[in-house]
Every structure is written in structure tokens, then in C-alpha cells.
């Protein structure tokens, strides 16, 4: 569809930092951007600008994260004692359920796609907005409706089913606001579907001229793979939870054997979504890390097509491994074997990514920015999380470890060590672009390191206590596990410090941060060619892409940081080659 145009012969250096040598004119110093284009509350609540919706989402998910983290805090405090001295068992169960539901459905699933994805997808592919801007706004409203319902269900009585809602407990036996929570999750699911649909259509139809599939930034590949999972998987969990609701309210037998249903059917349907959901959470982070490693090494990503296609492979494999959550149920031995072997196959594209990132750094020119530290800790933690996944996909081993703290540790390495590190890395990397301000580098580096230490201190002991056999979701536990739980809780407080520091300096930077240039990191990519923050319409003229992704020149690698910061204001107009025929609305 798009035609790859040849770069105009007057330019010999690629975009990015190389622009400094072009000697092209300075841009106007002050111009309207998406943040200044309307200051009223109404202008925010009725905006259809993907960048503003991204900000709305960022505020909302941060709020949900705060509630989810508070619930985790209660759990960790309670677990310092094996006899549970502060909370009742009922409250404890509601706390871990609230933690899981909030973190999974309202933070992790929307985190990167709805914030960084919303902000960056059009910018990175050279579009002026997503394909369906109103649908995008609707998705935020639906998210808020679902989110508030879930919060209401948690605050007005609570839910004690765990985030997994296993039947027949959730459908027949559980008290509490299960129905309201389910409706909330159902709605939040639709907000994901809207976002996913928007991304797929946008990536297919709205790429700038010359932006071929294999010139796309890897973040876009990751968002594309994520979107496919979202629109294929989310309807299934929506239906599943609706069926739980039907059984709960109308007593129609679906999952409860007392009513003639099958409880294992629920698990199949639930994990058919919820395993791919893990990849909804981690794939965007994998995309971000590809960006961070390349930008901080000032070098084209190694094995671009392998990294791009490994995202697709992970998405495909992700859909056919759900049964590995069910090795100790009545699932047949042969089904379990098939699910096990496919689960091992997921290791391959994951390993491909990790080794390609490492090799990208080889002969790079590496700058130790805060987001680079996040990327490094992501790779380390993702590697440990992935390798411990092999324990759980090993059938005989899983019979011992499933539903113990080993599983908790494993998926927190992926979800927190992976997805959250990736998200924070991405937020730091694109913060200047989103806000027009620089964050202070020193506290950022410090907090990234604190976070890494706190994370490991929190979750590594859980591997040990899981191998010792401590079941998850236990309020009272055997005294021999206490030392590991205390260590874990101590780690959680370090982790909390590592999260409060960025919250503080990022908010501080909004007012007092150094004004950001268009391209403070000297990175390549269309989003760095527009001013920071970008104007409402992103690109005054639709860019024509004539270069490959991550086309860093050796010159970029040698360019000193100070030189870049002294660069003239907005290189966007100077770098983006335009073509008068490729006007707005006709990019393809």
C-alpha cells in the first residue's frame, strides 16, 4: 500500500541527531501544542485527540495502580505474621482479590496500550490520530465506568473470589459483590477491545507514505500483536464472566455440577483469555525495551525482523497454551502434554528477543540513562521470570509447584519485573515528548535501582517459600515460612519507595522540569521529529518515510550529549521530507 520513497539526494545523513549537521533553519520558538490547545475541563473530557486520551488514561490507571498497590500493602503487612494479626481471614481474602482484580484488569491490561500506545501509535507511523478517535474516547469512558463499578464492588463489601473467579465458588458459594465486579470487568474488557480495534485499523490503514511494515518501530509491532490478542481473547473472558453472572443470578447450570454444569469448563474458558492476557501485559513492554535498547545504544536493533516476528509468534503461541494452568485438574494427561510442549515453544521467541537485545548493545554507544537502567532490569527480570516459567510448564514439576508461592513469584517477575519496568522505562523515555519537560536524571536513576533491588527482595524469597510448598492465598501459614514472608514484606517496602520517588519527581517536573527539546535522547523515529509536546495534529504535513527503522549513523553514536541538547529547537520541519500530494487524509 505505501510506497517507499527514495530519500531526497540533498540529505546524506539519516534522521535523528544527524539533523544538526544539516544546518537547516530554526523553528518558531513558541507554538501551540496539544496541551495548550484547550484548557477547560470540557476540552479534556470531550477531546478526541489520542494524546489527550492517553493522558486521561494515564491518570486513571495510576489511580487504579495506587488502590491495587494499597491492597498489596495490606496483604504484605498481614503476612509478616503466620497467625494473621491485623485482618480477619475474610478481609485478607478480599484484599488479595482486590489487588489481583485491580492490577490485572484495570492496570496491567490497559497500562501500556492505552497510555503510551494511544500516545505513540499515530506519532510513530506518521498519522494525525487513530482511525476512530471517537471510539478511542468512548473506550476511556467505558473503562472509567467499568473501573468505578469494580472500585464500588470492592469498597462496598468487597469480593473474595480472587481475580480468577473460579467456579463454582464464584457462581454459587461466594458472598460479596461478585456480580458487580463481573459487570465492571465485562465493561473494562470492551474498552480494551475498542483500543485494540483502533490500533489494528490504524496500523493497517494510516501509515505514512513509505512507512512499510518492516520500517515500523518495534513498539508498533508489539502493539499490533497485542491488539490481535485483545480483540480475539477479550470477548471470550467477557462471555465467560457473563455466564458466571447468569449462573449466579438465574441459577442456570453452566459451571456448577450441582446445577448440571462443569467447573473445569470455566477454567478452560477463563484461561483461554487470561493466558493470552499475560502477553497483552508483557508484549507492549517487550516493544518498549526494543526501543530503549536501540535508542540508548545508538544502534539499529539487531535482527529487526526476528524481533518483530517473535512478537507475532508469542501472540500465536500465547493462544494455545492455556491448559498449562490446569495440569492438576481433570484435564486429560494427553491434553496436558500438548499444552506443556507448546508452552516450552514460547521460550524460543522470548529467547530470540533477549539475545537480540544483548547483541544490539555490542559495539553500541551506550548511555546510562534512567530508562536504560529500566530496560536492563527488565531484561534481567524477564529472563528470570521466563526461565522459572519452564519449571511450571514442566508437567511433573508443576504438579508440585502449581498454586504455590513459586507461581506468584514467577508471574510477578513477568508482570512487575517485566510489564511494570517496561512501562516505567517507557514513561521516562517518552516523558519529555508527552509533557515537554525533562525529569531530573539523578533521582530517576536512583529510583530505577531502588526498584530493581526492592523488586528482587520482594519476590525472590517467594520462589523459595513456594518450593518449600507454601500455598498461595493463605492467610494463616506454617511458621517455618515466616522468615521468607518477612523478607518479602521488607522488600515490598523498598519497592514502595522505588515507586514513590518517580511519582514525586515526575509530578515535580511538570512545573519545574527543564524544557525538553524535540529530541532530547537523540533517538530516531517519527515521534522525535515533531516538537515536544506535539501539536494537536501531530504532523503539519504528513511525513514521507524514506529510511529504515532505527537508522542510527555512526555519527549519532559519537555525538556528545551536550551537543544534542544545544541542537536547534524543533528539527521536525527540517527533517521530515514532505510531499505536497501526500496531504492529510490520504496517507495511504
Amino acid at each position, binding site marked *: 500500500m505505501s510506497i517507499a520513497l527514495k530519500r531526497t539526494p540533498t540529505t546524506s545523513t539519516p534522521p535523528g541527531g544527524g539533523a544538526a549537521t544539516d544546518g537547516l533553519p530554526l523553528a518558531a520558538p513558541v507554538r501551540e501544542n496539544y496541551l495548550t490547545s484547550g484548557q477547560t475541563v470540557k476540552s479534556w473530557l470531550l477531546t478526541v485527540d489520542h494524546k489527550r486520551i492517553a493522558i486521561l488514561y494515564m491518570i486513571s490507571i495510576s489511580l487504579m495502580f495506587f488502590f491495587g498497590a494499597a491492597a498489596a500493602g495490606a496483604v504484605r503487612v498481614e503476612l509478616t505474621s503466620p497467625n494473621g494479626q491485623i485482618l480477619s*481471614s*475474610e478481609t485478607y*481474602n478480599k484484599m488479595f482479590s482486590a489487588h489481583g482484580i485491580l492490577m490485572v484488569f484495570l492496570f496491567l491490561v490497559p497500562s501500556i496500550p492505552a497510555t503510551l500506545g494511544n500516545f505513540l501509535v499515530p506519532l510513530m507511523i506518521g498519522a494525525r490520530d487513530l482511525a476512530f478517535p471517537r471510539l478511542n474516547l468512548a473506550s476511556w469512558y467505558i473503562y472509567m465506568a467499568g473501573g468505578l463499578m469494580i472500585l464500588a464492588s470492592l469498597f462496598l463489601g468487597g469480593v473474595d473470589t480472587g481475580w*480468577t473467579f*473460579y467456579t463454582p*465458588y464464584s457462581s454459587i*458459594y*461466594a458472598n460479596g459483590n461478585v456480580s458487580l465486579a463481573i459487570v465492571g470487568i465485562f465493561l473494562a474488557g470492551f474498552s480494551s477491545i475498542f483500543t485494540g480495534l483502533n490500533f489494528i485499523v490504524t496500523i493497517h490503514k494510516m501509515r505514512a507514505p513509505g512507512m512499510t511494515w518492516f520500517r515500523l518501530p518495534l513498539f508498533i509491532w508489539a502493539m499490533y500483536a497485542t491488539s490481535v490478542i485483545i480483540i480475539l481473547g477479550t470477548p471470550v473472558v467477557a462471555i465467560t464472566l457473563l455466564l458466571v453472572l447468569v449462573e449466579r443470578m438465574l441459577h442456570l447450570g453452566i459451571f456448577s*455440577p*450441582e446445577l448440571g454444569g462443569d*467447573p*473445569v469448563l470455566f477454567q478452560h474458558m477463563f484461561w483461554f483469555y487470561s493466558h493470552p492476557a499475560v502477553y497483552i501485559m508483557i508484549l507492549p513492554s517487550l516493544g518498549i525495551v526494543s526501543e530503549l535498547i536501540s535508542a540508548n*545504544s545508538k544502534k539499529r536493533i*539487531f*535482527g529487526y*525482523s526476528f524481533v518483530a516476528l517473535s512478537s507475532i509468534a508469542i501472540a500465536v503461541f500465547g493462544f494455545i497454551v492455556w491448559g498449562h494452568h490446569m495440569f*492438576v*485438574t*481433570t484435564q486429560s*494427561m494427553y491434553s496436558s*502434554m500438548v499444552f*506443556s*510442549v507448546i508452552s*516450552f*515453544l514460547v*521460550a*524460543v521467541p522470548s529467547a530470540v528477543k533477549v*539475545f537480540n537485545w*544483548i547483541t544490539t*548493545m*555490542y*559495539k*553500541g*554507544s*551506550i548511555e*546510562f540513562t534512567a530508562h536504560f537502567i529500566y530496560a536492563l532490569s527488565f531484561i534481567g527480570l524477564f*529472563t528470570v521470570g521466563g*526461565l522459572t516459567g*519452564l*519449571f511450571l*510448564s*514442566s*508437567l*511433573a*514439576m508443576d*504438579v*508440585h509447584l502449581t*498454586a504455590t508461592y513459586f507461581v506468584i513469584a514467577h508471574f510477578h517477575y513477568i508482570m512487575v519485573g517485566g510489564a511494570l519496568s517496561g512501562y516505567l522505562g517507557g514513561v521516562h523515555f517518552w516523558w519529555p515528548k508527552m509533557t515537554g519537560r525533562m525529569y531530573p536524571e539523578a533521582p530517576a536513576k536512583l529510583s530505577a535501582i531502588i526498584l530493581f533491588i526492592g523488586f528482587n527482595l520482594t519476590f525472590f524469597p517467594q520462589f523459595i517459600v513456594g*518450593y*518449600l*510448598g507454601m*500455598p498461595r*492465598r*493463605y*492467610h*494463616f501459614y*506454617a511458621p*517455618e515460612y515466616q522468615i521468607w514472608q518477612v523478607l518479602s514484606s521488607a522488600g515490598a517496602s523498598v519497592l514502595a519507595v522505588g515507586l514513590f520517588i518517580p511519582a514525586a519527581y515526575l509530578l515535580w517536573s511538570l512545573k519545574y522540569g527543564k524544557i525538553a527539546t524535540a529530541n532530547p535522547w537523540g533517538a530516531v523515529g517519527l515521534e522525535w521529529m515533531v516538537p515536544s509536546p506535539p501539536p494537536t495534529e501531530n504532523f503539519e504535513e504528513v511525513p514521507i518515510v524514506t529510511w529504515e527503522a532505527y537508522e542510527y549513523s555512526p555519527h549519532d*553514536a559519537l555525538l556528545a*550529549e551536550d551537543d544534542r541538547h544545544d541542537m536547534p529547537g524543533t528539527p521536525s520541519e527540517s527533517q521530515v521530507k514532505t510531499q505536497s500530494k501526500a496531504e492529510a487524509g490520504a496517507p495511504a
Partner: protein
Amino acid sequence: MDHLSFRAPAASTYAEDVDKLFFALLGLTFFFSILVAGLLIFFAVRYRRGNKVDRTRPLTHNTLLELTWSVGPLVLGLAMFVWAAKLFAGVFAPPKDAKEVYVIGKQWMWHLQHANGVRENNELHIPVGEPVKLVMISQDVIHAFYVPEFRIQRHVEPGRYTSMWFTPTKEGKFHLYCNMYCGTQHSEMGGWVYVMSKSAYQKWQVSGGARPVATGGYTSPNGAPSLTQVGYNLYNKYQCNSCHSQEAVQRGRGPSLVGIYGKIRTMQDGRKLRADDGYLRNVTFYPNEYPLAGWPQGMPSYKNVMTEEEVITVNAYIKSLGGPGSKNLGNVYDPANGGSLQTNTTGSASSGTIGGMTGTGSGSLITNQTVQPGPTSEDGGNLDPQAPAANTNNQQWRYMYGGER
């Protein structure tokens, strides 16, 4: 916080095998983690900005490298898969001589029934070195029976039986957990597995095991009735015998249950089902869904009449009536003897006692009747042979339903 332990004792044959796999996986994890972390740090330091190193001819792709790190993990992963899958297949193949214990999970306790009639709550006493097979069902939500020292667990589901087995190798007291979240007191749903020496187990069986254990159901100083005996009583209490003959000869409105355990049964719609514990349970609870070919379906549902525990007990009795499946279960029935029940009673001196129990109508699990315990065999797992004999005294079906079929 008494001591620092990194490893739970491995107390079953399976645990020893699994731990080998565990340490292999651990080795793999350490190798790759250190490799990745080492390379990351090395490259990050060596190629840091400003460090004067050779950066000429940087690589951007290399298919050979890509293949190396695709195929390498693939081969290692497949090797691990095969190792783990082989071990896992063993989980599904209990030895034929495994001692059966029935497990009922309910919010929030475990109830266990030994074949010899001993009942326990939240505790399981077993002899060391002998395979044990648990047949489990839940009365409400999903639970999971987990003994970390045995490295084994299985879900306990409502509506169908699951089983797992293990051979304990170490004497001691081990954790018994529910490891599937089941509601408010989930974390308190557990207890201990006591693995005892053979002699201690013998002693426990005749003294401690027969004394009121947790449930306090038995007051007999001489021992509890076996599961089969209790099942027999229930069989009569619920008047199963009014339709289902306990003799090889077919009488009554329903099929005789002699010799059916483990047989393939054909339904009216052509389904062929094996008459195992699950089948018997389902027929008891949902008879209309299992209309037997050749018979009019007239059996009422016992769904809200019998508990899971009672069904298990009656099943144990039906098993003792013989059938292709029952000889694997340590029962005494021998099809070589022509399926006649009387052959089973050879050597039993106490059949009259059982009949007397029935006569007094004390079919409930709580009984004060003195029951002669059968001679306990060496492994303690054999059923008492006397129970099936008693049915000859109990043929009121003739009067109730008008004769033979």
C-alpha cells in the same frame, strides 16, 4: 521463624524424582540468567559512551546467530519436556496394589475414609513404603489435596472423582494443604499426613485408628466396621436392595449389582460407560441421565438424600460384590469362583452379626453394634471379607416388589 530452610524433605518416591528435575531446571536457570546478566553488564560497560573501543563494522543481523539462539533453547526445552512428561505419566498410573483411601473435601475440612472403616478428619495415617491411592471428591467447591513433601497435588472437584497416588519413603509428619482457594477459611483447611513405620501403623490401626478419631463416630473398643460393612448397612438403609439384588441371580426391578464394578455398561442411547466409582456416583445422583439399555429407568435420584460420603461408602460395598474392576482394588471377590457371593464368606464366622445389624435397622454410620473386625492382613489394606455375605438375610425385596424379574 525457627529455622532457615531452603528445601522441604522429599518424602515420596515421586518427590525424589521430581527434585532431580528441579535441580536440572535450576541449573539451566542459573546458567542462562548468569549468561544474560553477564553479557548485559559486560556490553553496557565496555560500550558505554565515551569509552574508546572498536566500534567499526557493527552487526545488524546474522542468521546463523539467530538460529543458534532459537534452536538451542528449543532443544533444551524439548529435552526438559520429555523428562517431565515421563514423570508426569507416572502420576496417572497407580500400582495395582495401592491402598485406597477415600477423600472428601468440603469447606473447610478434609474427611478421609480408609477401606478398613477408619475415618479421619484433616489427618492421614499411612505406613511407610506402601503405595497409597487417594480417590477424592468435593462436596462443594473445588479444593486441592497437596502434600508438599510428596511433591504432589491434585484438584478435588465437585461432581467427579479424581485420584492421585504416592509411595511415602520417609516416616514423619508432613503438611496436608488445600491448595485451591475455597473461601474464607481456605488457609485453615489442612492438617497432617503421618507416615508411620509398618509396626506403628499396625498398632495405630487396632488402637488409635479405631478409637474415635476426630469425628468420634466409633465407640467400639474392638475396632470399627470396615468401609464395606458400613456401605452394606447404608445399602440396606436406603433400600438399594429393594431393587438391586446383591446376588448373582437377577431379581428386582433394577439390575443386580453383583460383578458389575468395572464392567462396560450400555446406555439406552448407545453410550458405553465403564461402571467405576464416578459412574456409580452419577447414577445414584442423576439416574435419569444414565438409563441402562434393556431396563426401564425408574430409579429415583438420591441427590438430596445421600451425601458424597455415603455414596463413597456404598460404592465400596458395590465394589466388594465383584466385577472386573474390583480385583485391582484389594477386594476379596474372585470371579474364578463363579460369581457366587457365598464363596467370599469362606472362613467368616461373623456374617450373622452383620445381618443382625441390618435387622435392627442401625445402618447409619454411627453405630454401637459390636462388630468383629476381620483378621487384618499384613498391609492393612484388605477389606474385611465378611460384609458381602450378609445379603442372604436380606431379601425383603421379594415382598415389596413382587418377585423375581
